[in-house]
């Protein structure tokens, strides 16, 4: 803060470090002040109490663990105190917001001092050099805040970005109040001591302050008070779902199922619209709008209070929480952009998937494709509805060894790797890479779906059965380490299965290949394959924070180029959340938009790291790829192509 430091210096010099005190207040004025303060606080409490009740009266989060405190503390420091997320995702307005926030912190002392003055006690004046310094320091902040708030005001009322929604009077009033607070403070630095002007300014400043307080509850400016707590109390994991306990929990069915954390998050929403701005469903015209979903939960709590029996999902399109509808909940690709973007710590996925759980676990969701998927998983044990014999044939043809406990890795194929033609190619190529490296591996004789589509669609019965079955097969086969080409299987086995037991260690093939980069580079022959644009799969990036290993792999095989949105901001392919199985999308295809974006880089090849993304792009390229579409390859295929043929001697089929 060197710039602020200089400002403090300059302002300090010019203003002689004095804050104009009003002439001492008479008894009557003091009584009036006390009454106003009481009134303001009373109004604040009166407006805030129902909200506090809605949050506290909601269901206790049984799975909330505060430890490890270090991680929570760090997040609080980084996201709240440093405003890192606010700034990173929207640079200029983010910085303006941060200035206002820091200014508010600096003004805490000034505010106490201001009220104390009313009762004849100027704390800062008594604090000697520190007081003098602080008056100037706060003055510098007042300048910065005044500029920032004026900028934000202009953005909201003149530039009007569409994500902010309708122009709100409330925001305008708040901005004016903040500006008035700063202006009156600055003016107090220039008017003479104990002058009538000083008294006027002091009263103006104090009245604005007392008006500000009761406005906070019931408006989005409640985030001022709640969001530090919300960020601190956030569930530690991305898309973390709570375990359903007892005989009456099925997910989010009624208000009884809303937890305190969900309620706290809903009331913290500042309506910035970042979640919706980055939502692939909203961007392609689906009914889902994640911001409205959060506000829908708030509207529900406001209308029914906590613990209500009224259903959360409403049929009438004009209902009080109209954004909470079954079609909206089932349009989500669970890409996690919303949850990642939210600056105040709202976690959308537990709500969206919670609503799905409520609908599916009670049988309320009726969908032709969804039912077909669930029945395939129930009967055939895989999401593509194929016979297990097809997988047997594939592993026999590829001469994949069966895992017998002697090999280092169990290569998990997943539904795509077992049954989808392109998924099989990816698995086969990755197996060749492992063979070239001399890594021993085997595949399970029988594999059921890891349960990702069941989990994301909210079918807990099916997911539980699949997870238990999977855990049993790994235990029976004595598997210690798993490697997979599918980020969905990866996330599901590593995190979601935990509800049922401990799975062996699992990693993604990108991590495996990046670790063996040095050796792979020595084995590689021929020319680099030209430019490759790498697409971050949601379930590898945002879900697992694996960004560098796949890039390292791509860099071995070609020249890495980045799409406009990449890493944490990567845009979904449209397949996640079980949507790959739910038939044609309404409106534009998510995959088409992303494919165009990847093609705009001009890269010769699109590099994927997930068989679902690959399959979505394959279809999309057929539609929007034009006459000379780029090549589409998994990162394992990029590597396999540069390995010499003799390094690829096939393994032997055992058992």
């Amino acid at each position, binding site marked *: 803060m060197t710039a602020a430091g200089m400002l403090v210096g300059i302002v300090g010099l010019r203003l002689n470090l004095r804050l104009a005190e009003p002439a001492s207040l008479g008894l009557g004025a003091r009584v009036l002040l006390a009454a106003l303060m009481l009134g303001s606080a009373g109004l604040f409490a009166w407006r805030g109490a129902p909200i506090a009740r809605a949050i506290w009266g909601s269901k206790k989060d049984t799975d909330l663990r505060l430890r490890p405190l270090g991680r929570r503390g760090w997040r609080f420091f980084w996201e709240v105190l440093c405003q890192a997320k606010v700034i990173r995702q929207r640079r200029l307005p983010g910085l303006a917001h941060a200035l206002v926030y820091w200014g508010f912190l600096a003004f805490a002392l000034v505010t106490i001092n201001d009220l104390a003055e009313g009762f004849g006690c100027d704390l800062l004046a008594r604090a000697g050099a520190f007081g003098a310094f602080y008056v100037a320091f706060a003055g510098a902040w007042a300048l910065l805040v005044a500029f920032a708030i004026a900028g934000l005001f202009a953005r909201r009322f003149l530039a009007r970005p569409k994500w902010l929604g309708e122009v709100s009077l409330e925001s305008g009033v708040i901005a004016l109040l903040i500006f008035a607070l700063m202006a009156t403070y600055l003016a107090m630095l220039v008017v003479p001591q104990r002058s009538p002007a000083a008294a006027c300014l002091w009263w103006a400043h104090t009245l604005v302050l007392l008006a500000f307080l009761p406005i906070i509850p019931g408006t989005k400016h409640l985030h001022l008070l709640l969001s530090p707590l919300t960020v601190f109390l956030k569930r530690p994991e991305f898309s973390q779902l709570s375990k*359903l306990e007892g*005989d009456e929990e*099925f997910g989010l069915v009624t208000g009884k199922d809303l937890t305190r954390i969900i309620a706290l998050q809903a009331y913290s929403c500042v309506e910035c619209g970042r979640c919706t701005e980055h939502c692939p469903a909203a961007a392609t015209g689906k009914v889902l709008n994640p911001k409205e979903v959060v506000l829908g939960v708030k509207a529900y709590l406001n209308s029914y209070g906590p613990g209500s029996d009224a259903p959360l999902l409403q049929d009438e399109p004009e209902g009080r929480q109209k954004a909470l509808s079954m079609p909206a909940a089932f349009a989500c690709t669970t890409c996690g952009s919303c949850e990642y973007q939210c600056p105040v710590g709202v976690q959308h996925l537990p709500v969206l998937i919670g609503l799905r759980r409520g609908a*599916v*676990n*009670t*049988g309320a969701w009726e969908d*032709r494709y*969804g*039912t077909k998927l*669930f*029945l395939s998983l*129930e*009967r*055939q*044990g895989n999401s593509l509805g194929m*016979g*297990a*014999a097809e997988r047997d044939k594939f592993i026999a043809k590829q001469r994949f060894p069966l895992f017998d406990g002697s090999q280092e890795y169990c290569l998990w194929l997943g539904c795509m790797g077992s049954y989808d033609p392109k998924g099989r190619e990816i698995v086969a190529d990755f197996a060749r890479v492992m063979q070239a490296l001399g890594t021993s591996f085997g595949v399970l004789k029988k594999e059921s779906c890891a349960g990702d589509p069941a989990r994301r669609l909210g*079918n*807990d*019965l*099916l997911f539980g059965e699949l997870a238990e079955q999977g855990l049993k097969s790994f235990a029976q086969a004595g598997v210690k380490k798993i490697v997979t080409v599918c980020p969905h299987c990866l996330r599901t086995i590593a995190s979601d299965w935990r509800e049922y037991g401990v799975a062996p260690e699992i990693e993604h093939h990108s991590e495996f290949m990046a670790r063996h980069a040095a050796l792979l580079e020595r084995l590689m022959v021929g020319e680099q394959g030209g430019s490759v644009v790498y697409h971050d799969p949601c379930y590898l990036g945002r879900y697992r924070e694996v960004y560098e290993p796949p890039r390292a792999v791509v860099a071995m095989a070609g020249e890495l180029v980045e799409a406009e949105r990449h890493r944490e901001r990567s845009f979904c392919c449209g397949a996640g959340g079980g949507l790959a199985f739910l038939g044609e999308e309404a409106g534009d295809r998510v995959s088409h938009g992303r494919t165009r974006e990847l093609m705009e880089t001009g890269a010769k090849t699109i590099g994927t790291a997930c068989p679902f993304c690959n399959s979505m792009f394959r279809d999309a390229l057929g539609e929007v790829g034009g006459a000379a579409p780029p090549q589409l390859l998994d990162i394992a295929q990029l590597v396999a192509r540069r390995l010499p043929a003799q390094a690829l001697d096939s393994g032997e089929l055992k058992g």
Partner: protein
Amino acid sequence: MKIVVAVKQVPEREAVLRVTPDGRSIDESDVAWTMNEPDAYALEEALQLKQRAAEAGLGEAEVVVLSAGPERVQSTLREALAKGADRALHVVTPESGEGSLAERGSLDVARLLAEAVKGEQPELVLTGLQSDDLGAGQTGVVMAELLGLPHATLVLQVEFAGQGGVGRRIKVRRELEDGWTQFVEVPLPALLTIQSGGNRLRYATLMGIKRARQKEMRELSAATPTQRVDEVVKVSPPLRLKQTEMLTGAAEEIAAKLVERLRFEVKVL
């Protein structure tokens, strides 16, 4: 209205089947079990009828599922309860040996089931058209005979027929050959054997499974002694008959060989 649905537990489609050393039955020790597919459709039809009966003001219908077999069949009955059946009847037979399912033919099993149905006096009995494992297609129709009920086979859909006496007659859609269907009116009580594919099956839900725990599962002893009239002589896995022969040589030679085969062996030219 009461509907009884007979459901059989059969090996899963993907189950690896091994013939027992005596060559006359399947080794069950390693087999995973599931609900016979046409029976799943019979259950679905019953559940939909229950719903339609309520909507048509015919009162609360009760769906009772019935299965004969050793203890393992209870998992299939539970599944039926989870999907919405109201209660279950389990006719308990020994795991193996005298009185077990392996020792009973279709007639014997039909007797066991008919005995259990008699105690219920239902208006409608539904069975699957045939079982996925034995495929005799007999149990349903023999039961109808034993119970003295009219029956219709290969039924895809059932609806209530008639105006005033709603519920006393039903109209069923039967599948004929080559995509033809036939509508038949049947007086109640009656027995129908249900063909797969007439409905959309529902998926099992967590709520269903939890509620199923509180539903009644009554065990009945298999009163009738085994009276087998036929005898299983041999069970064998399908023989692989398809053989691929690669024709080799120059293109003309291959073509000549191919024509010869098509003309004299396959006889299509």
